[in-house]
């Protein structure tokens, strides 16, 4: 072996030794850091379970309201055939204007059975066949598209392919089934929610990290004063961001806004306050900017993307996740956003989402204030 070769080998040995030392040091850091351990080992398990349950692209038990004007044995048999599987969950209604059900977001499908259905399904006369009308909520274009393709095929199979009926389809909103109309209002929720949570999650942690919290606490200022004082400027920032996103939705994507501006604005304020409160709560708990950021990214993004009804329908989720969505501000603001943008829904139609959102907002601000430490105990 040459001197050069030996030197190269020795150098390599030295490098490996250094790498080993760094790796050992890092290993010790990891083993002593509960957060990294949890993220490394607990997170994969959590994510596989979480995504496995949430990502459900098959529709199941879609609520369908049926108004049977025929009230005949034939119409009842028709409904029975139509809803034989698990795809739809029928409910009989009568009287009220179908549009009201859509405005209240109670159903995405309404089937109106003609009063002469019983007569014509058995004996078509002069080319006149039994009629059914399907009203669809086009604001959820993926669901509407699916229903539109399924119902005729189900009926066709039920009657052995005989064309004994006539289907009239009407879209209540978004007749063109433009997916942008569905996606853009949802994106507003995702973007505003994420920005608000992210911005505010650093603010208290920053005070702790740079040592200014100790001085601030010594002045006798109350947690509520600090929290509300912190929320206000971010509120203004988030509202400006909302205006930017809203304007882009209108101008760039030409998404119509059919509801009440005042109600939408008030709801925006409540949603932003709720998200800022959530961010502040993360900040209060984390006390370190890096940790606050690590927590706020999934808390800001995952519920908006997966549990708000933005992509995956809430009614298809397992019971646990359906209950979980009820405590998420993103889920309720998603309903308000899509309702006001596309369905002309107002406060009367969105009372439950509005109050649920307001309730969360009050709860999280109080919780953050309660969790806020007014001392520097370790």
């Amino acid at each position, binding site marked *: 072996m040459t001197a050069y070769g030996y030197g190269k080998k020795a150098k390599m040995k030295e490098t490996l030794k250094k790498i080993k030392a760094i790796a050992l040091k890092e290993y010790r850091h990891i083993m002593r850091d509960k957060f990294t351990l949890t993220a490394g080992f607990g997170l994969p398990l959590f994510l596989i379970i979480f995504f496995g349950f949430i990502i459900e692209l098959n529709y199941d038990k879609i609520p369908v309201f049926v108004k049977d004007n025929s009230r005949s044995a034939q119409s009842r048999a028709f409904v029975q055939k139509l809803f034989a599987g698990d795809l739809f969950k029928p409910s009989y209604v009568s009287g009220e204007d179908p549009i009201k059900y859509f405005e209240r977001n109670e159903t995405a499908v309404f089937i109106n059975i003609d009063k002469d259905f019983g007569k014509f399904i058995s004996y078509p006369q002069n080319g006149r066949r039994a009629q059914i009308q399907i009203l669809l909520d086009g604001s959820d274009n993926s669901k509407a598209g699916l229903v539109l393709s399924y119902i005729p095929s189900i009926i066709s199979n039920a009657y052995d392919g005989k064309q004994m009926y006539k289907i009239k389809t009407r879209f209540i909103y978004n007749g063109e089934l433009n997916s942008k109309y569905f996606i853009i209002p949802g994106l507003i929720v995702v973007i505003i929610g994420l920005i608000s949570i992210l911005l505010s999650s650093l603010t208290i942690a920053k005070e702790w990290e740079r040592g*200014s919290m*100790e*001085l601030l606490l010594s*002045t006798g*200022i109350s947690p509520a004063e600090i929290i509300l004082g912190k929320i206000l400027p971010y509120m203004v920032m988030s509202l400006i961001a909302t205006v930017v996103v809203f304007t882009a939705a209108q101008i760039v994507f030409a998404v119509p806004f059919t509801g009440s501006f005042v109600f939408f604005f008030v709801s925006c304020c409540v949603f932003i306050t709720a998200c800022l409160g959530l961010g502040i709560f993360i900040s209060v708990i984390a006390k370190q900017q890096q940790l606050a950021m690590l927590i706020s990214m999934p808390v800001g993004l995952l519920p908006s993307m997966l549990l708000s009804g933005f992509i995956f329908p809430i009614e298809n989720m397992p019971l646990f996740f359906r209950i979980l969505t009820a405590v998420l501000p993103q889920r309720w603001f998603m309903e308000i956003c899509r309702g006001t943008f596309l369905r002309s829904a107002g406060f009367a139609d969105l009372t439950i989402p509005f109050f649920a959102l307001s309730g969360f907002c009050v709860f999280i601000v109080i919780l953050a204030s309660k969790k806020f430490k007014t001392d520097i105990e370790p």
Partner: protein
Amino acid sequence: MANNNLISLSLTKISKKMLATQALSEISLNFEAGKIHGIIGPDGAGKTTLIRVMAGLLKADSGNIGYFESDKQIPDNLIRKRIAYLPQEQSLYADLSCMEHLEFFSNIYNMTKKDFKEKSTKLLEMVGLSQFADRKAGNLSGGMYKKLGVICVLLNNPDLLLLDEPTIGVDPLSRRDLWNLIYGISNEMTVICSTSYMDEAEKCNKVHILNEGKVIASDSPDNVKKQFNVKKIEEVFLV
């Protein structure tokens, strides 16, 4: 002008554990009103913990702490507003200017605009920061930074001033300026100042020497030196 509302403190058997460390062990001390008190001790003696307990930011595990005004105890809910505390660590906002700091704290202390203007002008002049009023705290020297911290907490006209190692990391000239500042305000309030610089003990009316969380002496600097039969305070730790 002399302050008639000066606060005295009485600590009785104060103990405090910080995680696994016994930071304070049955500390009993009296801090007379209107004097400059030095809490002296090496690193880890418990000075910061003691100051934080007095500032109400840490709760003692056992013992009592009483704040008095002319021998009359001040209720806990009224004391916080009368205390000013400057932590040892950098606690100002690097991106805010001196004037913005003063404005911020004046609002926290609920001062009127007129009071703020008068007081801030006076304080900035007193510490020689008038010409740096628009300079950001992050761009101040160590001494200037500390002076800004002190005047921020002085805005509230406190009756008790707690300073945790205000001269640490500060050049000798700035240390002198800071002590001049403390002398200047000492007739208006009770000052309790911790330090690990033993020479600064001589500048205090009374020194309270801590070591490993226990009081080893509490008297005037001269009496402490006599008690330990030493020429300099730092020699107390060598005895």
